[in-house]
């Protein structure tokens, strides 16, 4: 439609493209740096030579972490919390969202008010902590799986998604003798792939990246990989092991980078596939509550 006509137009689009190029580089550089340090030799890191290109290429850091039982254990814990946490969240959110999408249902308004109020006012850290411990959930994996199984934003997103499904499909199913449970399972859910994918992604990212709740509720054998990483960063867990002491710091730096890469890659690989869904979801979730 528009064409490159004048010199100023060319300059304008060049300026925009370069600016966006800078954004691109800024977003990617930290990851390239992590890849580079995880693959570099300790000497090159110590001399400050490594930025985005690996120097003294070697895979020692990866061999180290893959021989490190605590890392595997933490990684397994993360997968456990992410898989089961997301499954529970999807079930619970669906069970709540479907009846709440029926605005004519008696009591619907009251329940919605309860949900929305809880978005703006919450118990706060200490009452939540005391609740979890008085339910005897501390030091059990349920302390991570249960308290976060319904997120109100995700719930509203799914409610709005269910509302957008034409009601005549459901009416036809009722005439055919299908109950509400059957409608949900056989008609509504198969049509809700986009909504479910979006909240599954958000929930999975939440569980995958969480470390704070694990820190306050769990014991160290139950720690997820992000808490494992945090403990490396703040020096609670020492890495590196053998070798000269000067080497040790640099090797632990590349080990840390390897841990970061291995623990961040799965999430980063998944989101581009769900992107077209969540763009819609963000709109629903943050403007209309």
């Amino acid at each position: 439609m528009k064409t490159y006509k004048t010199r100023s137009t060319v300059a304008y689009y060049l300026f925009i493209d370069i600016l966006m190029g800078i954004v691109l580089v800024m977003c990617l550089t930290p990851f390239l740096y992590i890849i580079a340090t995880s693959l570099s030799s300790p000497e090159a890191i110590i001399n400050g030579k490594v930025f985005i290109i690996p120097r003294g290429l070697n895979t020692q850091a990866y061999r180290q972490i893959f021989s490190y039982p605590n890392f595997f254990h933490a990684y397994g814990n993360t997968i456990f919390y992410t898989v089961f946490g997301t499954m529970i969240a999807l079930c619970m959110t669906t069970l709540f969202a479907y009846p709440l999408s029926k605005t004519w249902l008696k009591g619907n308004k009251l329940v919605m008010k309860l949900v929305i109020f809880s978005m703006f006012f919450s118990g706060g850290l200490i009452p939540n902590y005391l609740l979890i411990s008085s339910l005897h959930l501390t030091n059990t994996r349920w302390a991570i799986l249960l308290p976060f199984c319904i997120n109100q934003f995700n719930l509203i997103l799914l409610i709005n998604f269910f509302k957008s499904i034409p009601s005549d499909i459901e009416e036809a199913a009722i005439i055919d003798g299908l109950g509400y449970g059957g409608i949900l399972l056989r008609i509504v859910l198969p049509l809700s792939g986009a909504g479910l994918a979006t909240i599954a992604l958000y929930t999975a990212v939440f569980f995958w990246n969480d470390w704070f709740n694990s820190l306050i509720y769990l014991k160290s054998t139950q720690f997820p990989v992000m808490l494992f990483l945090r403990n490396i960063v703040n020096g609670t867990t020492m890495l590196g092991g053998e070798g000269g002491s000067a080497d040790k710091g640099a090797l632990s730096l590349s080990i840390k980078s390897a841990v970061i890469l291995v623990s961040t890659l799965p999430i980063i690989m998944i989101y581009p596939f769900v992107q077209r869904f969540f763009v819609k979801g963000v709109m629903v979730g943050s403007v209309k509550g």
Partner: protein
Amino acid sequence: MREQHTKQGKLYLQRYWPLYAMMALPLAYFIVFKYLPMFGNVLAFRRYRPGMGPWGTEWVGLRYFQRFFQDPAFWSAFRNTLFLSLLNLVINFPIPIAFAILLNEVRNLHYKKLVQTVSYMPRFVSTVVVIAIISDLLSPSTGVLNHFFADLSGKDPVYYMNEPGYFRRIYVLLDTWQYTGWTAIIYLAAITAIPQELYEAATIDGAGHWQQIWYVTIPEILPTIMIMLIMNVGRLLSLGFEKVLLMYTPANSGVSDILDTLVYRTGLANQNYSYATAMGLFTGVIGIMLVASSNALSRKLTGDSIY
């Protein structure tokens, strides 16, 4: 009459009980995990004794509130919270708008898509990872970025993550990095909804590229901008607690101790449960007042509100 009513009620239930049955478990979840802790805030007015339950033992009234009102650490955390929030708002509110507007001007659709996808990526990275990377880059011994700055200024490397003077800058820049692309989604969606005829008319009137942005794009997305601004003001007291906690060091605590970290340390590290609950409740009440008033303002100004 009443009989008919109960009969109707019976019919209603007979027809719709599956919907209520579906709700039962999630509703119970809400009551236990969202509303019980809310009522647990009563602990702010009661004395906590270990092993005597989460509701405390005896009523002490406003004692804990009086205590933290006189506590300089509380007011320091209050100031730090507001300061950091405002700085973050001033810098990181306009940037995603600018980014969305400029990204929308990109003509090569593949390039646009690529920039967009990559710009979301930081949002999916854990705060632990973000802090780990920046600590590495800024490390005084091996940090590439630190060496670069040192060479540039000709001075010795600075321990940036430990220096109080750099805490706020680093926090805000990390937020820029992590959330610009993500926040821009909403503005991009608003820009996409602008009717193309407006731009055509502007072109006919002789408006250049920048004039089109200034006179068409920005006025058209102004309602979205207003809503987002008001929502952000409503959230002034809630900062990225986990990020601050990860960046917190005894050396920078003078600027990095915010309300949330103070509650965390007082409550969970020092086990002053009632005292910490009182501070948390105070913050929560101010927070909900901010949300309510900014929401009312939004309704008045734009006719649109978040609830």
